């Protein structure tokens, strides 16, 4: 919790600024609508966190989201009865892409930056080849319910977000989280002390793929079929994680802070829109955040002494 404090402070300031411009935001319906919109990015950020904290990157999540939405539409084609099998298939496909990313990174020793960048290109190329640029088919109402509908006033996507968040926090408190953090902090030391480094990293990539699958289900449900569903999401997810104070290179940061970073980013976009600032600025803001946050991290590194690094992975 302590690690998430600075980003939570920023988030509160942003939320207050939104509320000033738009009092409706403070009402439950307004706030839930905001959370519903933020849910896919927050879930992606949680997945990205596992990879980043293990010292790697996953740039493939954006095009994985697009691929999954397009595949779902093509396979479902408006047919309600195949909704659940396709949902299961999407989850498996997400895990599989993560598995491939992880195996290539760990076993073949290809830097994850290259592996996942390649995966991004492979997936977007494959989607383009398969659809010829225009997705076919349609999602069923049952599929779309996850992104549009809700349980009474509570949107499904917010409930799914809470479940994913709880699971992510639990995972980081479990043995897996401690070994993951140790791997990211010092891979060699972790390996020498008996951590199966490769297996831990592969699992982290699979979690990221899984989060992309869940985000795809929510995004496709929210807005329908689109060949641009996941465009730029990999950078939004990495920005969110960095904004949450998670250090690129691994070993430090909490998953709660990463998810708070995603909510903050979404709040920021909402605020920019409320004040009539062009959406084109979103990518500029993301770029500034990534550079500023990493620079802030780099500036203080020399001043820091090792004991602090030691306690970094004591508590997630």
């Amino acid at each position: 919790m302590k690690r998430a404090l600075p980003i939570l402070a920023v988030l509160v300031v942003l939320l207050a600024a939104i509320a000033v411009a738009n009092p409706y935001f403070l009402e439950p319906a307004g706030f839930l609508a905001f959370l519903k919109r933020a849910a896919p990015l927050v879930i992606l950020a949680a997945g990205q966190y596992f990879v980043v904290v293990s010292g790697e990157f996953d740039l493939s999540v954006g095009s994985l989201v697009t691929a999954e939405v397009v595949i779902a539409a093509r396979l479902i084609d408006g047919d309600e009865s195949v909704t659940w099998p396709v949902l299961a298939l999407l989850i498996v496909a997400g895990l599989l892409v993560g598995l491939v990313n992880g195996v290539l990174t760990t076993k073949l020793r290809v830097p994850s930056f290259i592996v996942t960048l390649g995966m991004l290109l492979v997936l977007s190329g494959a989607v383009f080849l398969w659809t010829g640029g225009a997705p076919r088919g349609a999602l069923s109402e049952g599929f779309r319910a996850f992104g549009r509908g809700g349980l009474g006033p509570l949107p499904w996507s917010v409930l799914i977000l809470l479940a994913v968040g709880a699971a992510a926090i639990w995972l980081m408190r479990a043995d897996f989280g401690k070994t993951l953090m140790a791997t990211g902090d010092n891979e060699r030391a972790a390996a020498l002390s008996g951590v199966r480094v490769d297996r831990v990293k592969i699992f982290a990539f699979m979690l990221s793929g899984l989060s992309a699958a869940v985000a795809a289900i929510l995004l496709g449900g929210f807005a329908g079929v689109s060949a641009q569903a996941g465009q730029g999401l990999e950078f939004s997810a990495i920005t969110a994680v960095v904004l949450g104070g998670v250090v690129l290179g691994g070993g430090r940061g909490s998953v709660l802070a990463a998810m708070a970073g995603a909510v903050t980013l979404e709040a920021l976009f909402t605020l920019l829109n409320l004040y009539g600032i062009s959406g084109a600025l979103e990518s500029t803001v993301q770029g500034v955040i990534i550079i500023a946050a990493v620079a802030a991290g780099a500036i203080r590194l020399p001043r820091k002494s090792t004991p602090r690094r030691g306690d970094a992975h004591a508590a997630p």
Partner: protein
Amino acid sequence: MPRLEAAIAVSAALVLAGCTTDKPTDTTQPAPPATSAESSGTGAQSKFFVQADFDAQLAMRSQTPQGPAAKPWEQAIDPKMIDTAQYKKDGPYHLCFSNAAVNNPWRQVGWKTMQAEVGLHEEIEKFTALDAEGKDDKQISDIAELQAKGCDALIVSPNTTATLTPAVTAACGKVPVIVFDRGVETDCPVTFIKPIGGYAFGADAAEFLAEKVPAGGKVLALRILPGVDVLETRWSAAKVIFDKSSLQVVGVEFTDGDAAKTKSIVSDYIQRHGTIDGVWMDAGATAVAAVEAFEDAGLPVPPINGEDQQDFLQKWKDTGLTAVAPTYPTYQWRTPIIAALKILKGEEVPETWNLPQPKVTSDNLPAYLKPNMPPLHYALCGCEDLPGFPEAWGGKKS
């Protein structure tokens, strides 16, 4: 306190970003604003706006096109016929096509329609097409490559107007050239085929809103992205109409053609203004997302325009929208093949082939809605009589 530093850096970045940004509706060109522009909220006029073209296109909408009414792709509005005897030669023919891209549903539907049209003509012995994948440089080399293939006629759908002009000019000297969709800045092609144009599209939608939305109503304008001539004309025509109307344009936003972004923007405006009384769009691909934003907010959907895409027409019918769908008909992809054959047979063709550009209204909606077509199909494909319909366009036989 490293994280605090990061937080401060981030906050500072935000402040900076906020300070250096103007309202999104301001274009870089400070064109002289129309007198009522201030009050109607439409911002400065686009630098792409040409009054004479605007007037000509709006006038063309009410002119009766010449040619068979059942085949709008063969019709022409106010054609100035030119002699093509100099290009006459005996068949069979080898037609070539340099395509800008097939990277969106509109171009996909058009491309399939063109291929089917080629299949209708036995005198076409060979049809060579190269896809430039949306890249100017590739299209320039494609056009050069096609000239070496012994084409009898070259059809070009330019990726961009200015950059492709020299390549088209060079080709004109060797082979009769037919340009369609976007134009080039030279009159060397034998004929230039296009629907009426973007001004007519934007005006059709804006006039509908001016009629249906109560006086003083709040209108949200959604555009894909700035700076593209074919889209700027649509918005600049709408701006002229809105400036003359009593409507209040509360926002002009860019959606990047992304459904999720569109839905978020519309939801934000609904929250901010309580309600929105009309939605204008420069393209219909995300119209359904805009409609859903109202549905999800539990509000009635106000008057809105889309395009002739199947998903919007279906939504229109299912929920009884107050809507209009101006079109940029995909049947224009049939015309270049017909024109090429006319030219090679020495028959007259219009110098500028202005195709009719119908709009879908609640009266003619049932005629255009084809329940078995895929959601991203364009209804005005003029492809229903072509072999392979509907399967080749992704539809199912009913």
